[in-house]
């Protein structure tokens, strides 16, 4: 199984850089007119060495090995900005970049230490932190709302909640989990989690170029999900949602899947009357790449936030399709030290500076990577006394009476 899956021409086999032209999406790559919009919109465009248009030139010139040999593509945080802006509609982040990054990753002389540890941990323990898989569901003990584990209740449920790694292990992710459980209960939704059996969805391993690890995790999770009966999957992991929707189907995943933010937005009419506590927040919302640019969920989080009494919504200079990545995608979550050593500005710091400029006192997010990234970045830029970071679900739960 490979990174890019055939979307048409099903007898053409697996898409590679060598046979791109056999696939409609691949052929489109060669329609590039070298306008440079991709490089200009790339958050690390200055550092990329080979931005997408240069990759295409090198590919056409038969010099792609030079691109593979350069570590520049490690700076790609797969934020989908180049793809969203390409006037030719080339699926750069979906088709071209994963194929190139896989080759770059395989040829890296040294994998940056932090990233290597995260990948080895994910391989061995099913989470990048290197925590015990037997503690994956430990957070649920601290939830005031009971959180059933599907293997223990032994019956079908409506919603199977795929928790993901940062929510399962990071203390701030645990906060968002407790809020999510509270919302499920308030809506009367019959839900359960996979508990300790769940493993990382693996999307960031795929997008940094470690596709073998992604395939392994995909197989393991699909096999696990097949054991249980449920109507749909809801996950708070923006990258997990993206992988389930777009990549897992190639491995036999055929379940209905929702990200929790748009899922709760669907139930807004029933949530709104329960939002009775007034919150004194001016909120600016950060569009997560995987939810916004890649899946078009721009209005749903804002509708939820606008429904909270007392909340005033303001927008950053770059929002919606122009949102700037937190820097955590495509393996960036474990490359902060590497980027810092190279003297790059951390994207999370660039982002919180913009958030502070709005005058807001709360930064709302929908991706589990962002809470810790932005809280750390606020401390670095000296803004942590002026602004808090909250997952949208945390703000909703806060506005509900217990």
């Amino acid at each position, binding site marked *: 199984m490979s990174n890019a899956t055939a979307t048409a021409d099903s007898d053409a086999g697996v898409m590679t850089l060598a046979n791109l032209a056999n696939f409609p999406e691949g052929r489109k790559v060669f329609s590039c007119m070298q306008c440079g919009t991709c490089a200009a919109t790339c958050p690390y465009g200055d550092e990329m060495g080979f931005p997408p248009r240069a990759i295409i030139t090198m590919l056409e010139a038969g010099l792609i090995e030079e691109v593979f040999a350069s570590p520049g593509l490690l700076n790609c945080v797969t934020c989908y900005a180049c793809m969203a802006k390409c006037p030719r509609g080339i699926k750069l982040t979906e088709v071209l970049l994963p194929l190139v990054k896989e080759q770059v*990753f395989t040829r*890296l002389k040294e994998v940056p230490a932090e990233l290597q540890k995260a990948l080895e941990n994910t391989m061995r*323990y099913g989470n990048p932190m290197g925590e015990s898989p037997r503690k994956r569901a430990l957070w649920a003990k601290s939830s005031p709302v009971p959180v059933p584990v599907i293997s223990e209740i032994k019956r079908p449920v409506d919603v199977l909640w795929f928790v993901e790694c940062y929510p399962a292990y990071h203390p701030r992710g645990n906060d968002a989990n407790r809020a999510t459980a509270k919302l499920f209960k308030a809506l009367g939704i019959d839900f359960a989690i996979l508990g300790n059996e769940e493993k990382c969805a693996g999307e960031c391993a795929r997008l940094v170029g*470690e596709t*073998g690890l992604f*395939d392994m995790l995909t197989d393991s999770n699909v096999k696990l999900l097949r054991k249980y009966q449920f109507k749909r999957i809801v996950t708070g992991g923006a990258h997990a949602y993206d992988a389930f929707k777009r990549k897992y189907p190639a491995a036999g995943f055929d379940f209905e899947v929702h990200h929790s933010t748009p899922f709760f937005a669907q139930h807004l009419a029933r949530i709104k009357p329960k939002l009775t506590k007034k919150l004194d927040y001016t909120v600016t919302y950060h569009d997560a790449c995987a939810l916004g640019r890649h899946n078009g969920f721009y209005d749903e989080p804002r509708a939820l936030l606008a429904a909270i009494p007392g909340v005033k919504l303001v927008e950053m200079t770059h929002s919606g399709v122009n949102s700037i990545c937190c820097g955590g995608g495509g393996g960036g979550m474990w490359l902060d030290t590497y980027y810092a050593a190279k003297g790059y500005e951390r994207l999370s710091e660039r982002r919180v500076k913009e958030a502070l400029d709005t005058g807001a006192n709360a930064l709302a997010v929908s991706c589990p990577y962002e809470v810790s990234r932005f809280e750390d970045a606020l401390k670095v830029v000296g803004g942590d006394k002026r602004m808090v970071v909250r997952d949208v679900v945390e703000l909703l739960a806060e506005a509900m009476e217990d």
Partner: protein
Amino acid sequence: MDILVLMKVVPDVVEELEVGSDGKSLDTGFLRTILNERDDHALEQALLLKDKHGGKVTLLTLDAPDIDDVLFTALAKGADRAVKICGAGSVSSTQMAARLFGETIAKTPGLLPVDLVLTGVSAIDDLDGLLAAPIAQKLGWPYAGVVTQATLADKTATVVKEFAGGVRGEYDVPTPAVLGIQAAEKPPRYVPVAKVRAAMKSQTIESVDAPAVEAAAGVEVQQMAKPRVTGHAEMLEGSADEVADKLCELLAKRGLL
């Protein structure tokens, strides 16, 4: 320049260890094993030497659950041959492991000659580092332990040994020799999963029967227990002023103010 790397697995402490019902050993119910970290460094040092000088790197291990994954990963990283010693059961003492390795190296056709035998200088279940030296004695070769650098020239290995307080000593060791590796010159390399899977398809792991060795007269475990909690930190609660008052009171009570 050919190198033999001895590797073994140890309990993974990411999983909380529990004492078994016999009170003398680990509960194996949830126990997972992992490659001894220093053996991983020994492998890396061998691969670095191979990158520099060429030659073959052969892996020798004691059979254990999941050992094939460890060996295929090492083959994918660049080792040339993998051999596991089967039929020895669960080897719980380092002395026994040293005898099994020593006998196997000496008796198995095709494992020798090599220029170096590398292995981790210690392990979490062998903090005294009792594995490598008896093997060197069995082979009649010199031994250097706590090695953090090694270079090879004709019939001589130049090694850096680490001592307490940041002191290092450089030694010339005539080869063949056994080295106990504390750390490789670089952190162990990453190998993509796809390469490990390719190694699983294209390479094989050889097995040799465990040689008959005399039971080692070693240390017998009498009792195994978790550390007992004997004290705890006291958190001072309240406003800054209240905490300051409590702190002053505590210090005064202990005669420090």
